[in-house]
């Protein structure tokens, strides 16, 4: 009996797939909502369509990559300071 009923409903592949679909629908919706407002950009570029969406995504990707790069040099085993 290793079918899907043994697994917690949140962990089933079908649920995870549904969560992804709902998640992406929400993302599209938030960007679409931007059509309903009239932004007052302070610096020009922040008035571009979907600025916060791509800015958020790419700055996060950049931070993760930078952390990864820094990790190459600065990561040590967690017993490093133990005597």
């Amino acid at each position, binding site marked *: 009996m290793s079918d899907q009923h043994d697994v917690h409903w949140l962990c089933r592949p079908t649920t995870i797939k549904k969560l992804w679909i709902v*998640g*992406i629908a*929400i993302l599209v919706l938030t960007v679409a909502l931007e059509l309903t407002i009239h932004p007052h950009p302070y610096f020009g570029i922040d008035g571009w369509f979907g600025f*916060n969406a791509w800015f*958020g995504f790419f700055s996060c990707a950049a931070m993760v990559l930078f952390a990864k790069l820094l990790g190459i040099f600065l990561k*040590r085993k967690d017993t490093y300071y133990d005597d």
Partner: protein
Amino acid sequence: MMINSALPPGLILILGSLFLPALVGNARKTLMLLLPVLTMYFIWAVPDGVQLTVPFLDYTLEPLQGDKLSRLFATIFTLMAFVGGIFALNQKSQIELLSAYAYAGGAVGVAMSGDLVSVFIFWEFMAVASTLVIWSARTKESYRASMRYAIVHLFGGVILMIGVIGQIYHSGSVEFGAMKADSWWTWMLLAGFLINAGAPPFSAWLPDAYPSASWSGSVFLSAFTTKTAVYVLIRSFPGENVLIFVGLYMVFYGIIYALLENDMRRILAYSIINQVGFMVTGIGIGTDLALNGAAAHAFAHIIYKALLLMSAGAVMYEINKRKCTDLGGLYKAMPLTMICGTIGALAISGFPLTSGFTTKTMIASAAADQHIAYAWFLLEAASAGVFLHAGIKFPWFVFFQRAPGYVEREFGAKPKDPPFNMRLAMVIFAVMCVGLGVYPDPLYAILPNPVDFVPYTSTKVIHMLELLLFSGFAFFVLLKMMKRTLTITLDFDWFYRKFFNLLHEEFVVRHGGAAFAKFRLACLKRVDVIINHIFKHHGPHGILARTWPTGSMVLWVAILLGLYLLVYYI
């Protein structure tokens, strides 16, 4: 009726804490709840202006003064002591409770002091009390971390002391008010304050020390030291340009190191530095809105960071595990802890309807109003990064990530939601996170400057949702790269934990070796001889420690006087 009292409210917590170890059971619990309530009453009974003066050398100290900024910080420190006290009601370490309450009292003392000397005294008192909080976890790790913590803070205290003396000497007054970093002594003051804020290069003390405290200790620690630093910076260096850069560095330092971290409480410790970075940037911008933003953010931050550390503390309390690689799937066994932790995580990220949204956005708005483009863009990127490193990463790796039952299988643990008092403390702060997000007006009313800020406009809400939800999307897209490993990340503390040791060993082997060891042994032997000698005469059986009859004293006095007479005539 309000009682007009000249007693600094911080002293109620400090003096009251001394009685805690003397009491047991319900009496102690009652006192733990009563002390912050009393303190809060006295804070709000203090009218504006100087209320108490104490002469000291040629100066007049003002250990008690009231204004909006002081009351705001004293209020949140006391509230923290109260709810932290509820959370820690079943903490068995009496030293920890005593020192945590004294520590809170020190923070209230700093917030209500009107002069540099009083600030310094309460400041150093906090350093000692907080060291004890860490130390009282009673593990080898916490002992060593507390010693490193104490050394950094005593060093910071020396720098601050030099600044205080320089300022008093050159201005001729002990007044604690707004100043500019334009002389070596004001730079020293600024540096002393910034060390406690967790600013570079000494940021490492915070993630080193706080996570090694007990399950309740780190909740107290998260609140006071860094936020008193924010308070003194708001009062003394508003609009100091360099703080924008220091703050922005702290913001990104916190995110990057938290992304690399495996220990859940160290993730939260790094995010303290990240959050204080937002506040420090706001202080650097220095407009009324920015300072309001820094103060309001400090207020909200204490609540949601304590909430996050309480949920982490509850996990520690139940299964005594801290590493993300050991955790996961706890959402089923600890549902309330998961919900409260997630509310704290949403609040720290500044999600609409949480306290982070109504407070932190003030700082970014101030940067936009002043047209400081780099600060605004970096703060936006950082807001996205907060959601990434604390908003999702913390709850994901602790409560989700794996199927339920993982810790039960791996460690034979039986986790459940913690005892009633701990659940109550989490619920109180979770409600406040949402409450201040939905209805921030009571907080806005006690901010230092008049508030003309509307957090909820459709533009602001939609932009924030876009920013945060797409950061969340980035997290799950890049999840493979976020996989936790059994590692730590080197920081500036490597210099004093490793480098100087290596340097010392290198020096000894090359130039001394056996000769140095012999010399050291000889020195130790000499010290032993001296101590033995002193013990022989002054120890319990020593000739100088015995009780002497009055008669023999009179005899010796007579002999000495006789000798004196003799010498006089010769």
